[in-house]
């Protein structure tokens, strides 16, 4: 919105007293977001991590099409490429022109295809979980921060309660029960969809408190500014104040929290897959590939190393991107 509007206003000087001089000297209006974007562009490390994140997102989006058109093939069992011990023939896990990262021992799947396709499922789960957690966290954080008294206290206690839950244990203990509930009562298709949805819900429903706390803290300071009073004076509804006055001032923490929550959930999804809760093979996710590869840590180093390295790169890039965004959006915060 801002960029299109500010493009239109390029003709005028900020000083209305002498608008005539504006013709020669073009001063374009810059929104706070555009100023932040300029700061961000100067930060090389953040730009590199953003490029990696963008590549990751593009690969994740493209993967299903690549599978459909046969460019990558995560499901073909290349049994002929395995030796008698079901280890890949050749050095470095059977790297060849057809299989750039080698093949998976035991099954003969193409490792690169599986990692590539696995990215898609990892992203889908972590993105959905992040959206659930962010939505809950932002809305409850704004409401808690803006309302005083018992509403704030109630949400505060809910945050404490949720944070004090041993969620990983819960998640494991309840998984079969909850997945059965999802399929039987909510008619979610059985299998990986129900499993994935369960992970999304658990990560989302246990992830909002920390986000709500950050947002609440921000709202506490914004709420005292006079433009909030002004909005109340104009008769603005609570919803309008929440989402039109406060939320636009929260984009910086929201964006930063988003880019920092994503990698946490990517690794959480991997950890859950590793524990056998999330989507199960043959559908690949980064987590279940990593889990399987552990069996071959000694005999097939490439197979073990590749998924771990990929997760590491993605998580670090997202984190650096989040840090860079925070620096760009809030220039007053010191490192």
């Amino acid at each position: 919105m801002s960029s299109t509007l500010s493009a239109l206003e390029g003709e005028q000087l900020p000083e209305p007293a002498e608008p005539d001089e504006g013709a020669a000297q073009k001063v374009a209006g810059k929104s706070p977001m555009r100023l932040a974007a300029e700061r961000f562009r100067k930060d090389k490390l953040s730009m590199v991590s953003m490029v990696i994140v963008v590549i990751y997102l593009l690969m994740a989006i493209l993967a299903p099409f690549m599978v459909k058109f046969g460019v990558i093939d995560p499901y073909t069992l290349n049994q002929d490429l395995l030796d008698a011990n079901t280890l890949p023939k050749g050095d470095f896990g059977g790297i060849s022109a057809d299989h750039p990262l080698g093949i998976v021992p035991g099954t003969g799947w193409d490792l690169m295809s599986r990692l590539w396709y696995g990215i898609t499922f990892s992203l889908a789960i972590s993105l959905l979980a992040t959206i659930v957690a962010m939505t809950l966290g932002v809305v409850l954080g704004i409401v808690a921060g803006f309302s005083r008294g018992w509403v704030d206290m109630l949400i505060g206690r809910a945050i404490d309660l949720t944070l004090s839950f041993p969620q990983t244990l819960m998640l494991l203990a309840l998984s079969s029960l909850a997945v059965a509930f999802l399929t039987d009562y909510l008619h979610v298709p059985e299998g990986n969809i129900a499993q994935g949805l369960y992970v999304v819900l658990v990560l989302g429903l246990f992830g909002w408190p920390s986000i709500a706390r950050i947002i609440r803290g921000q709202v506490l300071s914004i709420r005292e500014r006079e433009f909030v009073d002004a909005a109340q004076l104009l008769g603005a509804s609570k919803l309008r104040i929440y989402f039109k006055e406060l939320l636009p001032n929260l984009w910086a923490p929201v964006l930063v929290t988003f880019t920092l929550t994503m990698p946490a959930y990517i690794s959480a999804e991997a950890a859950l897959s590793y524990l056998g809760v999330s989507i199960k093979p043959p559908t690949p996710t980064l987590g279940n590939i990593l889990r399987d590869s552990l069996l071959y840590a000694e005999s097939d180093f490439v197979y073990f190393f590749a998924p771990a390295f990929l997760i590491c790169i993605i998580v670090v890039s997202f984190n650096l991107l989040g840090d860079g965004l925070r620096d760009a959006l809030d220039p007053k915060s010191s490192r």
Partner: protein
Amino acid sequence: MSTKLANEPTAASAAEDRPILDVTNLKMYFPVKSSGLFRRTVGHVQAVDGVSFRVQPGQSLGLVGESGCGKSTTGRLITRLHEPTGGTIDFEGKDIAKVSAGKLKPLRRDIQMIFQDPYTSLNPRHTVGSIIGAPLAIHGIVPKSKILPRVQELLEIVGLNPEHYNRYPHEFSGGQRQRIGIARALTLQPKLLVADEPVSALDVSIQAQVINLLQELQDEFGIAFLFIAHDLAVVRHFCPEIAVMYLGKIVEIADRDTLYSRPHHPYTQALLSAVPDVKQAQVGGRRERIRLQGDVPSPINPPSGCRFRTRCPLAQEICARVEPPLLQIGPKHKVACHFPGELGQHPSKPVTPGLLGVDSTGLPDPAAGPAAELSVGSGYSDTWFDLANNTMGGKA
């Protein structure tokens, strides 16, 4: 500053008009909570304690006082950003002090506010157009397509370039931002504007421009102003009637000329003596300054009797025992002091005991007879307490 004086009260006719705003005995006590699990109320900040005044349509009342005296809180009570603890706010014949938040919305159109700090009163993420157009969108009075022309009209009224509607607040200077705030307040064509120190955050050259703009707007649209400020010169320029507040109470209220030339309350006199005087500099030498000793007492536990007594050069025993009533001592002049008088001519004996039924030290005095019925109302009456002979003999 320009020499134009706005809206000299046309003596009798204005006084008889029904006031647009009639505030009686307004109180705001903020609870002070203890820390810990059970947050008991351990006291109250008596920010505003029994304030009464009137604002006539199209007129302006100035509210002055030092920081923390409750003048901003009074403004926020009238705009109903706070719900008052007690008292009535009569706006156009309707008491809005206790109206619920939901029913306030139509009233919001008539009472608007100009904020002190133009750097926080505009949402930095909204364009000027959406800031000024917000009232129209919220109240849904004009169709969406008509909002922009109205916004541009308002920008022109407050002296900004109408083409700047899609800029962000941070692209404007302080004075321009304050004009944006004024335009927003004008959008709904209010009848009363509460201006909460509208020029305090601006530098002096810009102050004059903004004040003149406010005067032009008042003349053009007939808006009544409650003008809150701590700058006595600005208030004198803008307001035909002025109330002086100290620690949550009005200590003196009078028309401009009386208050500035013949103040009767020692606090008003001290305030006025703190204003630099250019004429004095021409004459040379130093003017007598009244220096108040000590700090403003805490509004959580204000002094007994008269709140000003801890710093008052005239204070006697009666001041600690009995609170002085806001006594009308002239046609348009009320003062809350036991020893009212012009500077250097304060009476040596309190003038109020006869009215309050106490002796001259403030102890109850059966001989003095019952306390007279003292009006605590907001307006001025036709008879007043005559200081010359200490009777209710003054008449218009």
